[in-house]
C-alpha cells in the first residue's frame, strides 16, 4: 500500500512549490491584478494554512518541510528570501519564524445580524510576485528532482514529497516531460513523488479539472501536462470530491485553463497528505 505513511515530527513529508515567473505571468486578470500577484497571494495563504495546521498551543510542529522554486528570466531560484533562501526545503517552524513581513489586511465578516463587520487580520508574506523573461520549466523540474532525491534519501519511510507546479505557458528550455518522468520515479518506501500541475489562464476558456484521460484536452501541450501529472492517491480523490469537484478514481493531479482563483483550492487539495498524527 502506498501514500499511507502517517505524518509526525519524526516522519514528516515535503511540499515543493514550483512557480512560473515568466513575463506572461504579468498578464492582468479581470480583477486588475496580475497572475503573478494572485499566485503569490495564493502561495502565501497556503503557507500560512500549512503552518496553522501544524500549530498547537505548545508551538509549531514540524510535520512538513516546505520549499518554493521560482523560474523565469533569471533562471531557477529559491522562492524564499533572507535566511530561508539558504536551503530550498525548510521545516514549517522555521518558515513560521521568518516571513519577509507580516501585513495587516482588512477582512469582511458577517456580524451575525445582517451586517458586515470589517476586521484586521495578520497576513504573513514569504513569497513576492515576479514576472519576467522566459519559461525554463525543464531547469526548474531538474532542480526540484535534485532536491527531492536528497530529501527521499534522508526520509526513506515517510509519505513522499508532493510537487505543486504552477505555470501559464510552454517551456522555453527544452522538453520538461522527460524530467517530470524522472521526478515521478523518485520515491520513498511509501510511494513515488507526486506531481500536480496547474495551468492558469486569463483567456476565459473552459477549465478542465482533474481529468482521468487526455481525450478531452485541447492540444498537445495540455496532453503533455496531463502526462506529467501523477494519478491522485485515493485520499486526495476523496478530498477533492469533498470540495465539490467531480473526480474519478483514476484522475490525475492536473488542472488546465484554471482561473487563478482556483489556485487556493488546488493547493489545498495538493497539500492534504495522509493523516497527521
Amino acid at each position: 500500500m502506498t501514500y499511507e505513511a502517517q505524518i509526525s515530527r519524526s516522519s514528516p513529508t515535503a511540499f515543493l512549490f514550483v512557480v512560473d515567473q515568466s513575463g506572461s505571468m504579468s498578464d492582468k486578470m479581470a480583477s486588475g491584478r496580475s497572475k503573478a500577484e494572485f499566485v503569490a497571494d495564493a502561495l502565501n495563504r497556503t503557507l500560512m494554512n500549512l503552518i496553522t495546521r501544524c500549530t498547537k498551543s505548545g508551538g509549531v510542529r514540524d510535520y512538513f518541510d516546505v520549499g518554493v522554486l521560482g523560474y523565469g528570466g533569471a533562471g531557477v531560484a529559491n522562492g524564499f528570501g533572507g535566511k530561508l533562501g539558504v536551503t530550498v526545503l525548510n521545516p514549517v517552524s522555521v518558515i513560521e519564524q521568518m516571513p519577509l513581513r507580516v501585513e495587516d489586511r482588512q477582512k469582511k465578516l458577517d456580524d451575525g445580524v445582517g451586517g458586515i463587520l470589517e476586521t484586521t487580520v495578520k497576513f504573513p508574506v514569504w513569497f513576492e510576485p515576479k514576472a519576467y523573461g522566459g519559461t525554463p520549466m525543464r531547469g526548474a523540474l531538474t532542480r526540484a528532482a535534485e532536491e527531492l532525491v536528497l530529501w527521499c534519501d534522508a526520509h526513506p519511510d515517510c509519505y513522499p514529497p508532493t510537487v505543486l507546479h504552477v505555470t501559464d505557458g510552454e517551456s522555453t528550455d527544452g522538453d520538461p516531460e522527460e524530467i517530470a518522468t524522472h521526478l515521478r520515479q523518485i520515491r520513498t518506501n511509501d510511494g513515488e513523488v507526486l506531481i500536480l500541475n496547474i495551468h492558469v489562464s486569463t483567456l476565459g476558456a473552459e477549465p478542465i479539472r482533474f481529468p482521468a484521460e487526455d481525450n478531452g484536452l485541447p492540444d498537445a501541450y495540455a496532453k503533455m501536462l496531463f502526462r506529467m501529472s501523477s494519478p491522485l492517491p485515493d485520499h486526495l480523490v476523496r478530498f477533492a470530491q469533498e470540495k465539490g469537484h467531480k473526480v474519478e478514481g483514476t484522475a490525475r493531479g492536473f488542472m488546465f485553463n484554471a482561473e487563478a482563483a482556483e489556485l487556493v483550492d488546488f493547493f489545498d487539495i495538493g497539500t492534504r497528505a495522509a493523516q497527521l498524527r
Partner: protein
Amino acid sequence: MRQQFAGTCPKDTSGNDINEDRFAVDAANGRLALCDGASESFDSARWADILATKYVADPAVSTRWLAAAEAQYAAAHDFASMTWSRQAAYERGSFATLLGVEYKVQHNTVEILAVGDSLAVLVDTDKINKCWPFDDPERFREHPTLLSTLPMHNAFLSETDFWTKRGTTFHLTGLRKPNLLCMTDALGDWFLRQAAEIAVPRLLALSTQEDLDHLVVEEREAGRMRIDDTTLLVFSFSTTEAARGVSVS
C-alpha cells in the same frame, strides 16, 4: 459499576507528542466520559479535558452546556498575546469526540451519548452484546462529527433528533457477566476487525498500563492498529446489579 481498567497509550510512545485523549470518571454517581481530541487542533487536549470533566459533573448536554464549555476554553487562552500563527490556529478551533456514559441503577441500564467515533461496547462474558455509535469498522474511515470550540461547527447540537441519533441505552438485565468497554477510535477500529472471541478476552485480560502498551505496540508493529492516541476504559457490573431491575426500552 466498578472501574476494572483505565489506560491510555500515546501516539508517540517516546513521549514527544502530547496524548490528546482525556477521560473523567465519577464511579460513585455512575458517570464517565471519554474524549478524543483531534490531532489537527490548536489545543484539543484541553478541550477534551473540559468536555470530559464537564460531562461527569453534568451529563445534560445541550447548547447551553456546550456554550459554557466553549467559554471555559476561551478563558484559558490569551488570544491577544499569541503570535500570528497561534492566533490563526486558535481561530481554526479545537475538536474532540465525547463518549458519555451514565449508569442508571434503578433501571439497570447504561445510557450512552456518542458524538464522534469513540466506541462503547457492552460485552457479556466474552461476547459482544451491543456497540455504540456503530459496529461496522468501515465507519471509522468517515469524518466524524466532533464537538468544536467554535459555535459555527456545533449546529448539529440544536437538531431535534440530536439525542435520538447519538444516544442509546444498553440494558444489563439478564446478562451473566456484563462489562462495558469504552475506547478511542484506533482501538475501536482494531477491536471491530478482530474476531470477538479473541478481542474481548484480550482486552478484558488487561490489568496494567504496561499490558495496554504491550498490546498497542504489538498491534501497531503488525500493521493491525493505526498509530493514534489509544485509550481503554473497562467497567464491570455485579451479577446482582445485572440481574436486578426492569428492562426499559
